[in-house]
């Protein structure tokens, strides 16, 4: 290797593994464990082929295609095919998210904190850090792929053969690799960790949405998304390996691009232009609330647009669903329409649940920003002046609650307005809006839990993301088949009225809001008692 560029890559790789010796195994274990448990659950829930064929019929529905990818092997919907079709894409998205977070952590964040500068002052090559980061990421994605393959095959289920199991793992690993490389590219383009993270997550969501639009349409757009490639591997049916090769090839090419960009830029610089700043603070930037909002403004707007687009993309398939249901006789028998509701309307609660959980991410980020500020030692500037802890925490809480309203409203309006435009019969926009807002109390419970953690257990605020992931899988799986009721009741999202199928349960909503209020008050008490530190 050329010393000028790569000297020290090996040591840095080991150092990255050392730093993340807990974090990375937890990620890998969670994926393998979740995948195996879900596979077992699929087998247990649909014991005979007839039951599975019933489900296969619903999978041709465009909403499902938009959500989980195009169906395949539906005429012989084995347990393996079913599991791979319904779970691969969603799991791959979360694997992609893992790669994004880890790459940002070891590239732009380290650079922003000045740690790369110290490393670079040592006899270490210019590209050693980005190379080591990608090497480690590729390694852990390969480990993830192999362990997932072994785990699925070890279940010894007839329809889950050796090749298919490893292909399933490989699809996850390849996705992780391509998003790792793409993130490394964004880490070169941006000036700072935050915007690199925003771009990377935006790219991940865009990849999912573009694939969804493509899959529902003629499939052309899906070619522009790595997620569109891997869903075409038809795991456990045709076991196609070319999508894996294509994805890994793209990962390597993007990795090369990231290295090239890194080699031609200055430390701390980026390629996207930075604007000149203001000499005076605006009238809005006058207190903790203005500051908290200003710090998150860009991300807030991006997420708001993203939520509308997500809602709109689901709404756009509503029209397709309508014609689909009209065409297929069998569906009319299968899904017995509830009185007064169209078949399309019956899908609204499920879509809304998935969108709500995604929309909870920016809501929690808004309140967790306070924790980040504390960790970076910037809180003492604020608390060292005439600002009480209640006012400080209250400002972030207010932004978080505003975000919950904005994100859910936009998702509901996106779904409603676009569906209304696409459907011949029209669509009740107000109903979609109500269905979205019905989730607000559940989101507030998540906010309350986060405030509680910030107040009492600031070191464990990351727990909330685990709980949100758990909620996502519970709600997502719960919508695909019947989970035991107590599992769904383990998350606040399990207590939400399924509008329009159910009426709005005021008592339930009031109880959730009450729980949220208690958690928030408890969190405030803790925050007023504890040390602020970094």
């Amino acid at each position: 290797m050329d010393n000028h560029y790569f000297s020290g890559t090996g040591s840095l790789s080991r150092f990255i593994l050392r730093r993340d010796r807990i974090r990375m195994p937890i990620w890998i274990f969670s994926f393998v464990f979740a995948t195996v448990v879900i596979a077992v659950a699929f087998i247990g829930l649909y014991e005979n082929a007839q039951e599975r064929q019933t489900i296969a019929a619903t999978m041709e529905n465009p909403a499902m295609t938009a959500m989980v990818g195009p169906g395949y092997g539906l005429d012989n919907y084995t347990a393996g095919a079913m599991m791979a079709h319904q779970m691969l894409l969603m799991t791959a998205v979360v694997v992609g998210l893992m790669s994004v977070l880890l790459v940002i952590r070891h590239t732009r964040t380290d650079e922003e904190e000045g740690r790369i500068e110290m490393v670079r002052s040592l006899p270490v090559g210019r590209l050693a850090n980005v190379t080591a980061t990608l090497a480690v990421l590729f390694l852990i994605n390969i480990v993830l792929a192999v362990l997932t393959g072994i785990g699925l095959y070890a279940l010894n289920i007839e329809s889950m053969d050796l090749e298919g199991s490893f292909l399933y793992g490989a699809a996850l690993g390849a996705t992780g690799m391509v998003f790792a490389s793409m993130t490394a590219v964004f880490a070169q383009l941006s000036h700072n960790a935050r915007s690199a993270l925003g771009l990377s997550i935006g790219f991940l969501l865009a990849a999912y949405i573009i694939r969804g639009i493509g899959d529902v349409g003629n499939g052309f757009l899906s070619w522009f998304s790595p997620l569109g490639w891997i869903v075409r591997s038809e795991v456990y049916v045709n076991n196609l390996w070319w999508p894996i090769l294509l994805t890994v090839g793209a990962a390597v090419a993007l990795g090369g691009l990231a290295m090239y960009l890194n080699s031609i830029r200055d430390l701390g610089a980026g390629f996207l232009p930075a604007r000149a700043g203001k000499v005076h603070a605006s009238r809005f930037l006058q207190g903790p609330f203005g500051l908290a909002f200003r710090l998150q403004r860009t991300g807030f707007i991006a997420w708001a647009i993203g939520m509308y687009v997500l809602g709109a993309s689901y709404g756009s398939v509503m029209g397709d669903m309508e014609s689909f249901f009209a065409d297929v006789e069998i569906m009319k028998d299968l899904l017995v329409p509830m009185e007064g509701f169209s078949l399309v309307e019956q899908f609204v609660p499920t879509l809304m649940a998935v969108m709500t959980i995604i929309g909870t991410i920016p809501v929690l980020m808004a309140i967790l920003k306070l924790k980040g500020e504390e960790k970076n030692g910037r809180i003492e500037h604020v608390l060292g002046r005439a600002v009480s802890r209640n006012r400080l925490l209250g400002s972030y809480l207010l932004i978080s609650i505003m975000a919950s309203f904005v994100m859910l409203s936009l998702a509901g309006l996106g779904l409603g307005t676009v569906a209304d435009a696409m459907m011949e019969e029209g669509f009740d926009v107000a109903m979609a809006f109500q269905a979205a807002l019905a989730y607000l109390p559940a989101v507030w419970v998540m906010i309350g839990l986060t405030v509680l953690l910030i107040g009492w257990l600031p070191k464990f605020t990351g727990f909330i993301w685990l709980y949100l992931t758990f909620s996502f899988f519970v709600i997502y799986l719960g919508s695909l088949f019947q989970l035991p009721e107590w599992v769904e009741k383990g998350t606040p999202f399990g207590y939400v009225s399924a509008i329009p199928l159910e009426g709005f349960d005021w008592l339930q909503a009031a109880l959730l809001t009450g729980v949220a209020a208690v958690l928030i008050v408890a969190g405030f008490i803790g925050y007023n008692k504890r040390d602020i530190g970094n």
Partner: protein
Amino acid sequence: MTVLKTAGLTKKFGDFTALDGVDIEVGEGEVYGFIGPNGAGKSTTIRVLLGILKATEGQATIFGKDAWKDAVEIHKRVAYVPGDVNLWPNLTGGEVIDLFIKLRGGNNGSRREELIRRFDLDPGKKCRTYSKGNRQKVALVAALASDADLYILDEPTSGLDPLMERVFQECISEAKAEGKSILLSSHILSEVEKLCDKVAIIRQGKIIETGTLKELRHLTGTMLLVETKEPMPQLHELKGVRGIEQKDGALSFQVDQEELDHVIRYVSGFGIVRMESAPPTLEELFMRHYEGAGTGGAV
């Protein structure tokens, strides 16, 4: 009148005792130097005083109010500069200064411009592009532009160049002339010597020395440089003599105040050729405390 006072202030982080019965007292119009090496507990004391950390035991009061309970009231009259200034990378220096002034509840536009000019700061740049010294300037301008009664400054000049250090010292002298009180934590001893009326030395969470500079010097003794016709064989055996060193044919050493008379009598017996005396610098004072007791674990 006492502006700031701690009594038996103790702070534990788990098993670790960061502060062990700290007593300091800053009077009105006083510049109080707070010195000690890294990790001695200077910043922890200041954070307790600001109500950011809660004391395990003991009292901390500012303007007669409890530092923890009445933090917000107190902060309306306090200006603070942290030792390690972390700012928001996507805000400009000017925005941060304005925000800080507003968070305190004051508004002092002309003073802001004057200080920005004196500290030679470009307020239109994003904080991410600032060096450590420039970030410190942002915090200093925000603190000095506010019309506070007490300034709490935690190693405020550690990143400034000598020119800016002088500007800082001028600003502190001006504040003092206006009757403001200042708690200045530092390990730049020449600065403390120049500015402070009173000094407290902290080591491993305990105040080991406190008083005016004069008192501290008195405690330590005098530096003597003596050249004699004949050698002084028993000098090192004398009580109160420390740190004997050979310097251009002369001997330099330190003498405790109470032994001075005794030592001079002894020295004069050997025929004095040259003799210089000087009060010890704060540095020597400091070194004596740290080297002498370096291994005595007080934690």
